[in-house]
Every structure is written in structure tokens, then in C-alpha cells.
């Protein structure tokens, strides 16, 4: 009886958020999915009947290349972000307590400026007449003729710049909760510092790492502004194509098909996440005051 009442209460309490998700997430997603199976009409709207024609168009040799580029750019971005975030998070967590808050502030401070402004700031920096370019030329690191803009590497650089805080924050949060006496225990048992780092610290912040991967990979897959502003035609990503199909070609079914593809790419790693996250039993033991 009591249990049933509790079940009801749970349902009532989750109903608003559930409803919100259904109306604003599930339904639109299904609509997008459905549109992908509709023919376009001449006015840029959606025609009648059902068709697989749009999906056949995805066989266009342009697409595999763009999808491939989207995947590798996102994966490399994720890898670089996590690689940079782990030592950063580790050092932040080991820093004296009174330094941690200011360090955290430094990580978050870019968010105070609009994302677009920051992207355009990069454009100014890397501009052929920009300060950075001139400095590099003066140091004979790049030739005057090389362009720093409109290259896949530039897109990668700005992607990493943009998403790095999203990797640092979860890694830092996990590291801060990590019990560093475990590192001492590992060293005590014969592990040198690096070994202790790999076999005890990294597994200890596993959840933070997975969160960081998800937080970077998912938005990176859907990047649109950064490749659009920083890249040329050789660095287009799937997000750019979706925008093109929607705004330029007015082919909504085509855009929907691409969006569905992207969604699958995002959902797949999310579905695999629980497999790697492991059971929720990594409790931190209470630390008593050390005499």
C-alpha cells in the first residue's frame, strides 16, 4: 500500500520533466526522423507521400568524406581535450585549497564572453595581418605565404579551445573527490609515480573521464559555427551541410536525414556509456584527521 503510494508520488514528481522531454525533445526528434522519409516539394516545403529517395542521395560521394571528417575531427578534438584536461585537473586538485577556486575561475572565465565573439577573436588572431601570424613569421616558424585560416587544423585548434573547459570541469570534479592517499598506497606497494597515476588515479576518475568525453564529443560532432567561420570547403562538417540544406537549398527532408545520421552518431556512444561507467560503488572513504 505504502509502496504503491510512493510509486505514484514518484510518477507525479517526474511527470513535468518527463512531459517537457516528450514535447520538446522526443516529438521533434520523431518529426525530424519522419520528414527524412518525405519528398521535398518545389517551394522548399514538404511534399506528400513517403520515399526513400533522400536516403539514396546520402550515397553521394561528397557525404562519406564529410561524415568521415566530422568523425575524426570530433574524435581528435575529444582526445586532445581529455589529454589536456587530465594533467590540468590533476594539478588543480593537488593545488593548495585556497588556489583551487581562482584556478577554477580561470577555466570558466572564457564563458563570460560570447562564444561568437571568441570565435571571431581567433579569426582576428590568425588573420594574415594578425598579431599571431606576424609573430610566427618573425620567428621563422611559418612562411609569409602560409594561411593560418581556413584549414582543418585551424578548425581543430578552435574546437579544442572551445570545448576544453567542458573536459576540464568533470575531470577536475572527479580528481577533487579522489582520495590521494591511494596514490601513496600504490607507491608504498612498489609503484613509481607514473605507474600509480595510471593504475590508480585514472581508474579513480573514470567517471569524470567518461563525462568529459561525452561533454566534448557530442557538441563537437554537431559543430557548425566553428568550421563555418574558421574553415574552408576542405573542413566542412556535417553541421555545415545540414545548415546548407536547410537555409540554402530549402531541402528539409535532406537536412532531416543528415540530422538523423548525426543523432545516431551521438546516441551510439551514449548508449555504450553505461557499459564503461561500471557499477556505482566507487565511494570515497572518510578521511580522518591525520595526527
Amino acid at each position, binding site marked *: 500500500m505504502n509502496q504503491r503510494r510512493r510509486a505514484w508520488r514518484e510518477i507525479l514528481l517526474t511527470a513535468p520533466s518527463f512531459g517537457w522531454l516528450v514535447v520538446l525533445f522526443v516529438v521533434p526528434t520523431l518529426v525530424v526522423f519522419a520528414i527524412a522519409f518525405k519528398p521535398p516539394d518545389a517551394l522548399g516545403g514538404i511534399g506528400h507521400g513517403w520515399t526513400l529517395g533522400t536516403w539514396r542521395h546520402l550515397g553521394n560521394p561528397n557525404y562519406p568524406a564529410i561524415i568521415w571528417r566530422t568523425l575524426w575531427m570530433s574524435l581528435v578534438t575529444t582526445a586532445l581535450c581529455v589529454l589536456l584536461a587530465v594533467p590540468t585537473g590533476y594539478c588543480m586538485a593537488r593545488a593548495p585549497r585556497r588556489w583551487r577556486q581562482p584556478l577554477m575561475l580561470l577555466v570558466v572565465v572564457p564563458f563570460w564572453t560570447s562564444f561568437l565573439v571568441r570565435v571571431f577573436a581567433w579569426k582576428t588572431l590568425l588573420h594574415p595581418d594578425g598579431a599571431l601570424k606576424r609573430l610566427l613569421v618573425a620567428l621563422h616558424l611559418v612562411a609569409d605565404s602560409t594561411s593560418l585560416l581556413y584549414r582543418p587544423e585551424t578548425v581543430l585548434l578552435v574546437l579544442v579551445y572551445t570545448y576544453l573547459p567542458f573536459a576540464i570541469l568533470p575531470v577536475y570534479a572527479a580528481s577533487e573527490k579522489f582520495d590521494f592517499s591511494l596514490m601513496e598506497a600504490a607507491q608504498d606497494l612498489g609503484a613509481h609515480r607514473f605507474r600509480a597515476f595510471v593504475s590508480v588515479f585514472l581508474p579513480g576518475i573514470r567517471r569524470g573521464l567518461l563525462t568529459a568525453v561525452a561533454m566534448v564529443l557530442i557538441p563537437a560532432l554537431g559543430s557548425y559555427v566553428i568550421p563555418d567561420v574558421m574553415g574552408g570547403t576542405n573542413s566542412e562538417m556535417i553541421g555545415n551541410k545540414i545548415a546548407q540544406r536547410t537555409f540554402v537549398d530549402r531541402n528539409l527532408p535532406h537536412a532531416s536525414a543528415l540530422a538523423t545520421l548525426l543523432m545516431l552518431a551521438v546516441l551510439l556512444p551514449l548508449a555504450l556509456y553505461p557499459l564503461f561507467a561500471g557499477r556505482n560503488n566507487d565511494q570515497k572513504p572518510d*578521511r580522518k584527521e591525520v595526527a
Partner: protein
Amino acid sequence: MAEFLEFRDIKKSFGAVQAVDGVSLTVQRGEIFSLLGPSGCGKTTLLRMLAGFEAPDQGRILLNGVDITDQPPHKRQVNTIFQNYALFPHMNVRENIAFGLKLAKVSRKEIDERVDAMLELVQMRDQAKKRPSEISGGQKQRVAIARALILKPQVLLLDEPLAALDLKLRQRMLLELDLIHDEVGITFLYVTHDQGEAMSLSDRVAVMNSGKIEQIGTPIEVYEAPTSSFVAAFIGDTNFLEGAVAALADGDYCRVRMPEFESPLLCFNDKRLSVGNRVYLSIRPEKFTISREQPQPDRLRNMLQGKVEDVIYLGNVTKYWVRVGEYRISVSRQHNRFLLDEQPIRWEDDVWISWHADDGFMLERYSESDEDLLQVPPETVFETEEEPEDSSQDGEDRR
């Protein structure tokens, strides 16, 4: 022949705090040696320096005659049982215990055999597949012991290993630690603030205070013959009576004059103090005899008359607080036989307390800074105007 384990004049400070201030001590092979002292006395720092987690500012540490002061932790043949056990949460019990052997690149087969033997020793065979979060505090403790012992360390370091357990479990683990020690015969260096643990487990105890060693001795020595007032007060309860040596008497004894009392008190003069030395006379509560009637005069017994101010009946003992002049003296009495028709000593009763001259100890007066640490009722603690010269202590530490 070099000593087994030797700390030579170790000093270490953290910022302005002198955590360890010139400690020298030696530990014999196979013994259980305890570092006992209040929080912040430097005992844990000393242990961490032996493990390699802290480097001393000054001094050397020698193990088997080899200077290990500059060796990194993973090279030292000592293993630690951490206060919070520090078991790896992502490994099960078996993997935790095997961790050290895996690093040592021991063969798979040997690892299995040795882990099995360890699981047997700490009676954790059935729990081998469980994660640390799935076992109890006492079991975690055992895994920590097994994980450290499997590497056959020269010295096993135990950092307040029982502090996180409840009283019952603590007593059981204490016995088990003792049994394990008998079985493996490895030297234990045991850090604790709990005198009960240190007394019951140790072969020898070093009592530490503010980064210095106050006394090293067997549990009986530090309890029955403390060399400083700090030791006397930290280990067990005691009463301090303030006075000065008035006369030497009867060969090994002397008379201590207390401004409070008419007649001087007789005390065993083991420290060969001379007339005029200012001392505390320390008498433990259980050394007193308390009675309503005046006891038979005895040449070697001191007698004081007072009034009972408080009585606490604890079952196995009764504690009395007896007012004698300015002092409030703590007396505890065991009931070897309790007769129901006996008229018990009550509050406000006039009583006699007496003790044998051998049961009192003369101690140097401690410095004022120690007073917070000495948990003695305020009435029995006195300000010292002058700092006594601690010449006797230095000699006492190296026995």
C-alpha cells in the same frame, strides 16, 4: 653490528611548525615498537618519513645499516597500513592484495599462491571477489594488512590502523594484529594516540610530545616509571603535588616538602635529586588506599587527611575526588571483595588516603606549553615560574 632500524637526529618542519624536532631512536628486528603521543606530536610525520612520503629536513634513516633517507617510497622495503586503509576501490579484495606482487613482476602462479596464503592468514577467503565498498571496516583492515604483508616488508608501518573502528572491533583487531605479528615475525612500527593500544600491543613505546621523544621504554616502564610529567599525565591518570626536596632520608629516599602540608612526604629518590630541587610528586589514583579510619602508621607510607568531594561508581572501580587543602586528589579503588553490609565511603566523608613511598614519582616540572595536553583537573596543575633544566631527559632517551 648495525642497528636494524635507526632514526638519527631527524628534524622536519612544515612552515612555522616544527613537526619533528631532533628525534633519534632505534628499533630492534621483530619487535612491535609504538610511537605514542597526542595529535600533532610528530609521530605520523616520523612514520611518513620512514615510508618515504616526507623527506626530513635534517637527519638520516637507516634500515639494516643502509641509508634509505633519499630512496623513493616504491624502492623501500617497508609497507604501510594507512589510517583509512586506502584500498583501491576499483579492484576487488584479491586484486588489492595482489597489487604489489604484480608490480614486482612475480609470476602468475606464485601470485596466486601467495595471495591465497594471505587470504587464509587474514581469514578473507570467502570475500576475495568483493569490492572494498562491499566489505565491513574490520574486513577492510584485514585486506590492508594482507596487502602490506604480502610483500614481506622489513618493517610494517601502521598509522593509527584501528582509529576508524568501533571499540569492540578495535579490541578484536588488536588481538589479531598481535597474532599476525607472532606468525610473520615482521617488525611493526605502530603509530597511535591511544595509550591502551600502544600498551597492550607493544614491546616498546616511544612517548612523543611536540616533535620530541619524552621517553622510550617498555609499557611497564613508561607507566610505572615515567621520566617526565608529560609521560606521567599522558599515560594513565595521575595526581601532581608540587614541592621541593627538603632532605635525603633512609638511603634511597628523600623527603619532599609541600607548602600545603605540615609534614614532608617520603618519596623514592630514583633520580638522585638533591636538596632544594623543585619537583612534582606524581601519584597514580590506584596507588592510594582510602579509608575512613586512620591507617596504622608505617615508616614508608605517607598519609593525608581529606574530605570526599565526588564519588563515581564505575563497577570495577570507584573513583573518589578527595579535597586535601588546595589539592583535589583523584583516588580509585578496586573492590576485591564488596560486602553489602559495608558502609561505603560517601560524598562529604572525612577520609584518610595513604600510599607507599615507592609508589610516588618525582618529576621535573613541565613547561607551561604542555599544560593543555595534560588532562589533569585544573586544581592539580600549577604555573611554573621558572623553566626547569631538562638535563635528566636527554640521558633517559638513549637507554
